[in-house]
């Protein structure tokens, strides 16, 4: 019986080892999908033997894919949760590897015609938790605030809830949209709408200046204010891998962190980490 066991063991082992392919799969954050696509296009142009497949879906979806083994790299606009690390630990005996690849100023979008130009963190929290419902409460016209946000699989949603709302729930009147582009589109067409998302998407809308409290100075999310930490809603954008990256995946990530890769970050509208 021991011989049978050994034969099957080696058979399974031999069958189980599959050589690494030339396709790198990247999945996750919608905030990062344009950035990831630009990286992939440029890198594939320089390395003809490699295919990089980029898909969005949200940070939560990307992390699930990493845990399920269906993607090699996960894009995430929020740090991985302890519960997610536990799942990785359970299946891969690894905590996952976190790589900070860009910085983002999480922006508050309003229509270009909106007369309110700056908000405090507390006011943003009150708008998104439903305590402020009319623009006149914050110096605007007597009009109802139409609140747009992201779905709960989004890393931007989680980061905004944890950091800006300090863990409180979003107002039930918030209209959840499937991507940052959809939020920008909705706000650009809604004079009394408000939304949030990555700085790189800010086309056809106005970005609010944000201040920590009523007595602070208000800042726009720019390279300087994000680098200096003056803009109050600053976050990192991450790549995650299951285990320490090796081979082609390591080379790709090294390139992302190189001056060339970080230039792409700036071109897309985010801010380099180096």
């Amino acid at each position, binding site marked *: 019986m021991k011989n049978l066991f050994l034969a099957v*063991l080696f058979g399974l082992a031999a069958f*189980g080892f599959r050589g690494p392919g030339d396709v790198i799969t990247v999945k996750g954050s919608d905030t990062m999908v344009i950035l990831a696509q630009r990286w992939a296009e440029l890198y594939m142009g320089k390395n003809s033997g490699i295919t990089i497949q980029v898909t969005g879906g949200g940070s939560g979806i990307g992390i699930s894919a990493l845990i399920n083994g269906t993607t090699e790299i996960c894009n995430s606009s929020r740090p991985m949760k302890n519960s997610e690390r536990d799942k990785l630990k*359970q299946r891969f*005996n690894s905590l996952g*590897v976190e790589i900070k690849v860009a910085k983002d100023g999480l922006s508050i979008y309003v229509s270009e015609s909106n007369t309110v130009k700056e908000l405090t963190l507390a006011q943003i929290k009150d708008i998104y938790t439903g305590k402020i419902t009319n623009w006149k409460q914050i110096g605007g016209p007597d009009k109802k605030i139409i609140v747009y946000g992201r779905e709960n699989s989004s890393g931007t949603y989680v980061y905004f809830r944890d950091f800006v709302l300090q*863990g409180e729930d979003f107002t039930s009147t918030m209209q959840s949209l499937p991507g940052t582009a959809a939020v920008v589109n909705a706000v650009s067409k809604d004079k009394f709408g408000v939304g949030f998302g990555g700085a790189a998407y800010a086309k056809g809308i106005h970005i609010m200046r944000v201040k920590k409290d009523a007595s602070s100075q208000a800042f726009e999310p720019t390279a300087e204010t994000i680098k200096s930490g003056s803009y109050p809603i600053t976050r990192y954008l991450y790549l995650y891998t299951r*285990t320490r990256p090796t081979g082609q995946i390591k080379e790709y990530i090294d390139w992302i962190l190189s001056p060339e890769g970080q230039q792409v970050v700036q071109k897309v509208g985010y801010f380099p980490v180096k």
Partner: protein
Amino acid sequence: MKQTLGYLCIILLVFTIVVKGQEQEADTSATAMLEKLTEVKGQVEGMNETVLEMKSTLDALKKIKISGYIQSQFVNVNSDATVGGFSGGNFDKNYHNRFQVRRGRVKFLYDNDLTQYVIQLDAIPTGVTIKDAYITSREPWLRMFALTAGVFDRPFGFEIAYSSSSRETPERSRIFQTLFPGERDLGAKVEFSSLEGPLSFLNFKGGWFTGNGIANETDNAKDFIGRIGVSLPFTEENLAIDAGLSAYSGSVLRETGKKSYTLSSVTKAGADSTTKYIDRTYFGADLQVYYDVPVIGGFSLRGEFISGKQPGDASASTYHKVNTSSPTDIYLRNFVGYYVNYVQNLGLSNQFVLKYDVYDPNSDVSGDDINQNVAAKLGAADIKYTTLGVGLVHHWDANVKFTLYYESVKNETTKYVASLKEDIKDNVLTLRMQYKF
């Protein structure tokens, strides 16, 4: 001249009619377009409402989560004797291999953020049983404390809570199968855990239980079971260390007219016919280390040690169950047991597994002490077992995995028990296929 004027008048009239007609036509088409636009707008608004309604329905449905797994396996033992009790159930003396559906689980969870409803069933060819049935409620302020009531895993050690669908070995260690058969108990517990913040490394779960598994209560005494744990992630090094201390403080009822024997002497067992509740006390320590080895993959090294007093029966060291129609004596033993389990990921799809597992149901006696003197009341239930297991797990995809596992089981021998004069032939080979969703 008159004729020319007449022609001019006719032309003007025709022109006026044509222009008027065109204007009317334009008016008509603009009105029609406006009507059409209003109609389309109405349709869009209607669709919007429908989408919003569907979204609210979908949001409600998203709270219902169904998961499950089936484990089908082929098991072979190297004997026709009645063995294999700790490898998915005893074999009959007439055969030594079998196909089996070991587990067929389906779990329904209604997750309303702060409250959860859970029912888990095990549906296998021999019947359908309830594995879990509980409610959990988390306080809304700190979200750190939760209360759970019903039938659920006993909060002791690591291996109980480690799902059978994730576990790399086919079964739990012999000591866990003996001390906590079925893993679940009926009761209530409080839990402390902080997802983020300075206390996120600490967790606690503890509560009071009937001590009878999923069976009904049989006495007034409740058993306390609890574990305090730490979880230390060193993300830069890709190293994690988790550890915990557990305690079980309970008792079993000594039925009227029956005795409790303490089996700690090789000459004579101590008898007690006055104490109503006999101690059932365990202490445990567990440690899990995870580390990502570059190129090869992550490994985990897990171990647990448990020691204590177990009020069992004459023929088995599982806890004594009250049976009012046919009461029996209680046999109290000091036990000790531990396991060490090494799992090495080999790439993304394979895992190598090695496990060493020891259970000594009576640590006060050994080998030939057993059954040397009839008055000591020692027997097969006092025999120590060690199991060395080796195996390979192959993850076919996100849902399917195969497990090949071989267990070499060794027992203590005693010249005073005929069936235990030499090692029992009870090594087990398991080939399992699992589907999980």
